[in-house]
């Protein structure tokens, strides 16, 4: 199978094959970014509803709906959810954007995990903080917004960062709906060159670099948030 240099040339340089991975990377990042945003918004809402119910007993019906959402999403594999989103929910929609389908599927999936992370964060804040806010005259919502959530966010930042990493790697199943993400890009190269090692190791390497870079980013942000309190 020749030496390393030759194989590198064959898999990545010849016929501009690196472009498969490059284009795939862009799609992977796009899907991850928008799915994360969707997941955070969804998760955030669900967490607020659930912790409001836990603390005050209000929003009973909303809480029940959230429970169902969490149970279904966390109880089924992401790849099945992706397939259902594409072939069932959007099955009759001609020419639907696969990126949109992936963003929705991964965003809704991630939202369930973000919700539990955020809820734990909110519940970790001492009840005295809520009482102090309310005693000043803030409403429940204002106290949440000005006092509870900023503290909760700081507490859950590491877990949220971790969830982002999980999501980034999870998008590698996008190939199931023939979306050409990074993993699929590597796969196409493999099908052209009949070499498994180079494209797969290459793909793995790119994921690893992304994750390391992002981990660094999160820890920098964490340090900055902590500085404000010391």
């Amino acid at each position, binding site marked *: 199978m020749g030496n390393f240099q030759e194989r590198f040339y064959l898999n990545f340089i010849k016929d501009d094959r690196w472009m498969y991975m490059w284009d795939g990377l862009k799609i992977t990042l796009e899907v991850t970014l928008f799915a994360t945003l969707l997941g955070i918004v969804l998760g955030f809402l669900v967490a607020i509803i659930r912790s409001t119910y836990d603390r005050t007993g209000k929003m009973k019906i909303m809480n029940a709906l959230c429970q169902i959402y969490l149970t279904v999403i966390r109880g089924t594999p992401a790849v099945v959810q992706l397939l259902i989103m594409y072939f069932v929910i959007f099955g009759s929609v001609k020419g639907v954007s696969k990126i949109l389908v992936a963003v929705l599927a991964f965003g809704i999936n991630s939202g369930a995990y973000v919700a539990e992370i955020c809820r734990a964060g909110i519940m970790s804040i*001492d009840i*005295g*903080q809520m*009482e*102090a*806010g*309310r*005693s*000043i*005259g*803030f*409403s429940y919502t*204002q106290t949440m917004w*000005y*006092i509870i959530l*900023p*503290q909760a966010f*700081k507490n859950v930042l590491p877990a949220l960062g971790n969830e982002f990493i999980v999501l980034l790697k999870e998008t590698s199943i996008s190939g199931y709906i023939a979306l050409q993400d990074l993993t699929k890009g590597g796969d196409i190269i493999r099908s052209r060159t009949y070499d498994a090692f180079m494209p797969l190791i290459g793909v793995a390497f790119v994921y690893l670099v992304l994750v390391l870079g992002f981990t660094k980013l999160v820890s920098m942000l964490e340090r900055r948030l902590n500085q*404000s*309190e*010391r």
Partner: protein
Amino acid sequence: MSGNILIRAENVRKSFSGKEVLKGIDLEIRKGEVVVIIGPSGSGKSTFLRCLNLLEVPTGGHIYFKDVDITDKNVDIDLHRQKMGMVFQHFNLFPHMDILRNMTIGPEKLLKQTAEEAEKYAMELLERVGLADRAHAYPSQLSGGQKQRIAIVRALCMRPEVMLFDEPTSALDPEMVGEVLQVMRDLARERMTMVVVTHEMGFAREVADRVVFLDEGILMEQNAPEEFFGNPCNERLKSFLGKVL
């Protein structure tokens, strides 16, 4: 306002999962009066205080604040709480804000003061309690006594008409109790209406206009401090005072 009664509690009852903690308490607090509530632990005195600004919602009875029944569900309690400052046993400062922000966020967001107005008044108050130099410190950098003094002036920033104190010195190291009581003494001298739940009998005797004894959810006795401590009538109060004095 009927006479000068600021708060009127009428047959206030509170149960926690079937257990009745307050068994119908009546109490009137006049403007400018300092009322100290004492009693053994579990007597319901903290619960009663927390009922006054509805942090605990009474299961029965009424609380009138300036003749408005705040236990009425149609009353905007947030508006009334702005006028009722509260100080907690565990300070409950906001750890993610510096001291000044702790004090100005309420006036800015609720009273719609400008940042300058709010900060000016906050600095005045900090000056008065001798903590002006800590305006930009964070709560974690302060001692317990300092935290509690900040908690008091944070409540004062809202220009309340009454201050509720829920065991303000119970979580403090003994050497820090004095500085907090001094701030409260000054406040009483300025004729701030105060309701204080405490175990500090010296403070009650010296500062209170009226002392109230609660036991097992019942208001057993209330009197001016000289009579209250010098000539207690209720048997339970006698034995309680015998133990704590």
